[in-house]
């Protein structure tokens, strides 16, 4: 873990075949394991030094577990996590504790992740004391002041407690705490989703500024596609524990290749009525299947509007490179991109797969009790 860089490339973080499975226990007398929730099931990714990797997906897709497993906050079941050439997944005890200095985390809920009984000074100096850094009391005090300055908080906040701050300020404290040890890698799990929109932008800008100034590498985990695109260089899309697509941010948003990415993108409302009325909408049928019992073949096939009769149901697609830097795991990615295949409506998918979808008879029952009391059909202007 000295200055020897990773082989050939300048990737600060490499994840190879990472799996995190949680056992499902059952039984009264014996803890029998009856199955596994495959939260993360074989993920490979690489984050070059100084760049930002964005991880998106819906709740339950395993993105947070992946982030935690990289930091060894969750024990990986299989696979390797190479941080600067060292396999973090195999480290134990003191070397692991030392390694953690260099990788830090910013959590989603800023109030829940800050000790309510510690004031800001104590919160920020604790990591330094724990690692024996900072050069004594005077050195630590100076360092803490510098940190507050870096995240844009007044130095008067030192004596105050987390509940005295607003949501945005608390998240700044969370970021400052993660920065105390001058880490190389910062994993941010939903850093802005608990904040009001007008404050989100402040925190996003702050993250950008800090990266520029300190040369940080980020892994940003979020469900908001617009936020992720805004700060990421490369974006990975997760579905049910595995990556379905990875691409440079611009490319991904201009031309999403995987059917799931396309529908995810089309589901995000845009704050502009003109765009809203004209944009393509792909409604997905049903909910996310259970990760304890994922569908066979392509995991997305139960909801996919482009599902084909062959291959999708029984053959697991691999993540393959379609164009430079663009990885996608779909058997039919080329055909979908070229417009050879056309999507089916959510109703059709639901009918063939037997899953739920929005109102099937919405138009047909206009004469029943739901419209009593209204004489003429109402036209929307």
């Amino acid at each position, binding site marked *: 873990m000295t200055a020897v860089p990773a082989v050939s490339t300048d990737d600060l973080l490499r994840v190879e075949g990472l799996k995190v499975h949680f056992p499902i226990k059952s039984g009264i007398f014996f803890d029998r394991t009856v199955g596994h929730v495959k939260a993360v099931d074989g993920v490979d990714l690489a984050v070059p030094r100084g760049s930002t990797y964005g991880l998106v997906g*819906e*709740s339950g897709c395993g993105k947070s577990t992946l982030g935690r497993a990289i930091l060894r906050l969750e024990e990986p079941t299989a696979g390797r996590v190479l941080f600067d050439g060292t396999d973090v997944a195999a480290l134990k005890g003191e070397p692991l504790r030392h390694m953690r200095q260099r990788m830090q985390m910013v959590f989603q809920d800023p109030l829940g992740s800050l000790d309510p009984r510690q004031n800001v000074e104590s919160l920020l100096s604790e990591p330094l004391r724990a690692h024996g850094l900072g050069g004594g009391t005077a050195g630590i005090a100076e360092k803490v002041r510098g940190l507050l300055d870096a995240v844009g908080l007044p130095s008067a906040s030192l004596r105050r407690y987390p509940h005295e701050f607003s*949501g*945005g*300020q608390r998240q700044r404290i969370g970021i400052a705490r993660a920065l105390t040890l001058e880490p190389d890698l910062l994993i941010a799990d939903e850093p802005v989703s608990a904040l*009001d*929109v*007008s*404050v*989100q*932008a*402040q925190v*996003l*800008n702050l993250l950008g500024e800090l990266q520029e100034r300190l040369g940080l590498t980020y892994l940003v985990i979020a*469900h908001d596609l*617009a*936020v992720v*695109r*805004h700060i990421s260089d490369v974006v990975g899309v997760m579905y049910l524990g595995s990556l379905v697509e990875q691409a440079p*941010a611009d490319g991904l948003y201009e031309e999403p290749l995987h059917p799931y990415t396309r*529908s*995810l*993108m089309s*589901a*995000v*409302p*845009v*704050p*502009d*009525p*003109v*765009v*809203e009325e004209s944009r393509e*909408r792909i*409604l*997905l049928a049903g*909910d996310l299947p259970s990760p304890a019992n994922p569908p066979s073949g392509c995991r997305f096939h139960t909801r996919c509007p482009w599902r084909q009769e062959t291959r999708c149901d029984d053959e697991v697609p691999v993540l393959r490179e379609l164009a430079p830097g663009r990885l996608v795991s779909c058997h039919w990615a080329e055909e979908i991109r070229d417009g050879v295949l056309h999507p089916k409506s*959510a109703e059709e998918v*639901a009918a063939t797969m*037997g*899953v*739920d*979808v*929005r*109102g*099937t*008879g*919405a*138009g047909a*029952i206009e004469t029943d*009790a*739901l*419209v009593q*009391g*209204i004489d003429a*059909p*109402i*036209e*929307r*202007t």
Partner: protein
Amino acid sequence: MSSVLGGPASAPVLEVDDLAVTFTRRGEKSTRAVDGVSFAVAPGETIGLVGESGCGKSVTSLAVMGLLPSRGVDVTGSVRFNGQELIGASDQMLRSLRGADMAMVFQDPLSSLNPTVRIGTQVTEVLLEHREMSKKQAAEEAAELLDRVGIPDPRRRLDEYPHQLSGGMRQRALIAMALACSPRLLIADEPTTALDVTIQAQILELLRDLVVDTGTALVMITHDLGVVAGLCDRVHVMYAGKIIETADRHDLFARPRQPYTGGLLASVPRLDTGRGTPLTPIRGSARDTIPWEQGCAFAPRCDNAQDDCLTEVSGSIVPLEYDGPGRELRCRHPLTYPQAPAGATALGGAR
């Protein structure tokens, strides 16, 4: 006061006039959460109440439904539902209206369903209360309602408990309950905030269909400008308990006049603009407000603020004034647009 502009030409279902809600606690200064809010909704119309947390949008909806506790809460002004005054109406009358003629969908579907009662019982409860039905008929009707909101295999679901349903399905079940008696007015308080985007798209599509099919008046309460842009006909932007801008959705997003609205639009990253467009956040946080009696509550965070935004300089509280056809604005120094707007993008003109 607030006339229905641009909406369908029928009498409004709901008229709210100068509604104010004050919370008092012994030994503390009272808080005015809603401060003179007026709006109206016509049948088949969807209006949006937009604002950040703490701006009073949810309290407004609770006051309209008469769901605020009576102790320590002072509600003044007028809420007329089909011409009938609701403020000060008897509990009995409100009860007969709630669930039957006006219904509400809440944000968190898990905590607004009773976890110990089967879905079927919860849906039929409304039907048995407000429509003279036998239990058997009600069960039939409930299954039909669940089917209508897109829950598969509704008969089986009627026998299940809320925890057995996914988040999206719970929200659908709540919407089914709200629709049970074909209400004239539906208030949806952040109905999609707790849901994933793909499920959110399904629920929004469902609400959109409902308004078109049944002519229900819909009041949509949300903080998400994207949801508003796709769903609402008219939008009211709230800040610190007051409506600060009202406009047709096209006008609002094309030419926001209040610096707060403009700031909100400029601070959200969007999927349809180029990457790397810098975000222009609004300074400070929602805590940095001043009471409306002292001046414009947004003034401490506003880039356009000048001396006369304060009451002591101008001598009057900033009024909500006519601002072109179909628009109302509460601002002394609004954003201006020198030439005719070229496109509908709000980002360019916001600063």
